[in-house]
């Protein structure tokens, strides 16, 4: 039983690079950030803190509307639906103290934004990652 479970895990790991649904959070290499914890990603994306450990102001980038990746990202990160995330922001917006992340048109635009600004963060498919950005957090499958 245990052996079969281990074998299955190994098989899945071998397959992993080929999986299409593997989201990662990327940052500008100049951000001075190597890794982010899940809590840090949550705090930044949900507006609690907007400052990275290196002292740079974080600029998270979100995807528009009902993008499939956005849905998956929030589900993986905090286990919430987009409606819940929207309702969350709706309450905060009125006080004006914090704002929701900026919206990029698509993953490409997001990657460009990250490559351009040192404090920017975005989430993309692992397959979309290029050399301009650094993976600081993997949401996994």
């Amino acid at each position: 039983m245990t052996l079969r479970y281990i074998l299955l895990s190994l098989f899945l790991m071998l397959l992993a690079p080929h999986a299409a649904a593997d989201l990662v959070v990327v940052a500008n290499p100049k951000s001075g950030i190597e890794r982010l914890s899940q809590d840090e990603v949550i705090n930044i994306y949900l507006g609690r803190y907007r400052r990275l450990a290196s002292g740079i102001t974080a600029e998270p980038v979100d995807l528009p509307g009902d993008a499939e990746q956005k849905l998956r990202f929030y589900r993986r990160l905090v286990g919430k639906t987009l409606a819940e995330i929207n309702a969350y922001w709706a309450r905060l917006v009125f006080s004006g103290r914090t704002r929701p992340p900026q919206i990029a048109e698509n993953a490409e635009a997001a990657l460009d934004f990250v490559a351009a600004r040192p404090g920017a963060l975005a989430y993309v498919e692992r397959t979309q990652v290029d050399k301009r950005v650094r993976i600081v957090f993997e949401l996994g499958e």
Partner: protein
Amino acid sequence: MKSQTHWWHGLLARSLMAVVGIALLMGGASSVLVSRVAGERAYEQAMVKLDELLDTVESTATIAAFVGDEQLAKELAQGLMRNSEVLRVTIRGNEHGNERELARAERAPPSPAVNEGSPRGTGGMKDPATGAESNRTLIPSVKRQLYSPFTPHEAVGEIRLDADQDVIDARMANDARFISLLLAGQLALVIAAAAAAMLFLVVRPIKATSDRLHRLDAAKGERLAVPESHARSELGRLVEDINNLTARLVATIGIESDLLRQQVIDQRKYQDLFENAAFGIFVADHAGRLESFNLAYASLTWLSRRKEAVGRWLTEAGWANPEQLLALLRNSLNAADNQALEEDFLLIGQRKDERWLHVAVTPLGNGSVQGIVTDVTQRRSEEISARQLAVTDALTGFANRSGLQNALSGIGPDTPPFALVMIDLDGFRRINDAMGFQVGDQLLMMVAARIRKLLEDGDRAARVGGDEFALVLAGERGSAAIDLRVGQLLQLIGQAYDVNISGGREEIDISASAGIAFFPSDGADLHELLRSTELALNSVQASGGRKYCYFDLAQQTAVEHRRRLEDDLRHALDGGELHLVFQPVVDLASGQPVGAEALLRWSHPVRGLVSPEVFIPLAEDLGLIGEIGLMVLDEACRQVAAWRKAGLDLSVSVNVSVRQIPEDLPPLTVATMLKQHGLPPTAVAIEITEGVLMNNVAVAQSWIEYLRADGMRVYLDDFGTGYSSLSYLKRFALDTVKIDKSFVRDMSEDNNDRALVDAIVTMARSLGLQVIAEGIETQAQLDILRQMGCGYGQGYFFSKPVKADEFVTAIAKISAVAARG
């Protein structure tokens, strides 16, 4: 009835006061309870409200705390403050471990005047976050930890709501007031209802009944009406009871007045009785002051017949002992149980004439006594003469036994010595029986006259029994005077009497005996002296009478010895001390034993063997001989039956006393006893002495004939010692004569005795009688008897008398000797 009646004494007022009091008490208690409950409920409601408020704002507060948004928190807090119960809202955030207050909203404190009793402590006196206030611990507050909306275990802050106590208090007071008002209203209604019920159900009917009772005239037979619809209530019963009581009272009063009327009549009747009574009646107080008396009293006491009792005294009459009469009155008054007391009083008239009055007094219960007086002079004089008679012998005029007792009752150590002489007329009873008591009485009077002739001053004479006279003569033991006087007395009494018998005169000779005892040596009182003289007299009479004898101690000792022996004999009979021994009777020709003579023995536990010559006469005197005789016969029968059963063909002879014949040993009893033991009549023989034959010839003859008719044998015992009359042998149907051992014993030496025995044997043979020789002790005697042709014999030569269990051995030995010879 005159005591003031106030409104508060009324039934209605009192019950209402009680109801109001209880209602107030209950109202007070319940209002306290209500306020307590209302307070608790208000507190709980506030808590629930706060909790619900928190529920509605929790998610927003969480978000505000998560992002540390003070603006959002503030809006939230202000929103909460719109609830009147909320006094204060505090929202705190927790960012990277840094606690910080995000928002705080608070109601402005009310005016101090209102808040005096309950300081709120919200003016910053204490850290509001703790919410702790010294004396308002009850202030409800709700605190809730806030967690991150995204990582559920990360605390990001807290929210706290404090309730406004004043609001709660106010609501509570409102509630309490409302409930109290409700309660008060209910109570008022209940009191009103109770009052109305009391008034209509109880007070009005009672009042009405009471008014009617006031106007009621029971004597006219009026009765109370039962109030409407109260026929079965307590009130109805009360009215019934009052009516019943009234009826009984009326009846009782009626009876009472009847009684009173009857009493008046009775009184009149008793007044007549009182006045005309044959016996005297008086009423007097303890001192003897007369209150009233009747005519009979006046005449009995020889008083003037003046009617007025006032100032008259009981003691006016000539009482011989007035003090005693007054004492009787006092005793009667002091007696515990109203006892009537009575006594006879002697009244002595002016001319010294005497009158005995019997006075019976009874206390009347008011300190005075009623006395009944009757004339008992007649009875008293009769009593006196009767008392005289009681101590006097009517025939001789001497004192009787009681008189003698009276005369000697006072003797003691100081009394000078005297002699008591008891004289008894020998054979007086025979004369009395033969010639009639008239002759006896004449004789006694003459004897008394002769005795009286010899009496001196200071002597006393008494007739103490039918023919017994007792004389008390002054003098000491051994004095010649007593000897002389008693001798003279007996000599004088012994002279012939000229007696009148049925018209003719006849001369009678009678002698007297006398026993003499002395005071004080022979007896300390009359009783002992009389007994001593009786003993002395008995010894004179035993030796033929006609003499006198002084009492001596030996007589008494002998008497006592005999009495003890008598007691022992009675005891022996019950205790089995009497038993039989058997002496074998041998056929002299063959030398073989053929039977035995049963002899009675008494083994006294102290004295050892007592001779039958001593105890048989004793038993005869005591009347025990019948019982003993039966026992002997029964035991002998039992024994001979046992031997016969064992194959020994024996017969037993039993001695019978003259006293047993005929009543104590009826032939029928003998026959029955033999039958009971299953014996033929020949197995047991009866031995009688010549005394039996001589005593009453006719009776003895028929008794013997009865026995013989039954087939039994009768022996004549001790032949030769008495009259040994040949005529007896012919006259009585006898079987056997037993030659007395005194002849047999002396036979060998004395030719006379030998000749006598020879004659008896020869004579008996010629009459067809058997002969048994008693007391054979030697071979020589045996030889002589054999030679004479004597049939049977017994004696120590063969065997002494032996006990039943040794008897068989004894006869075996005799048989053995016979076989050898």
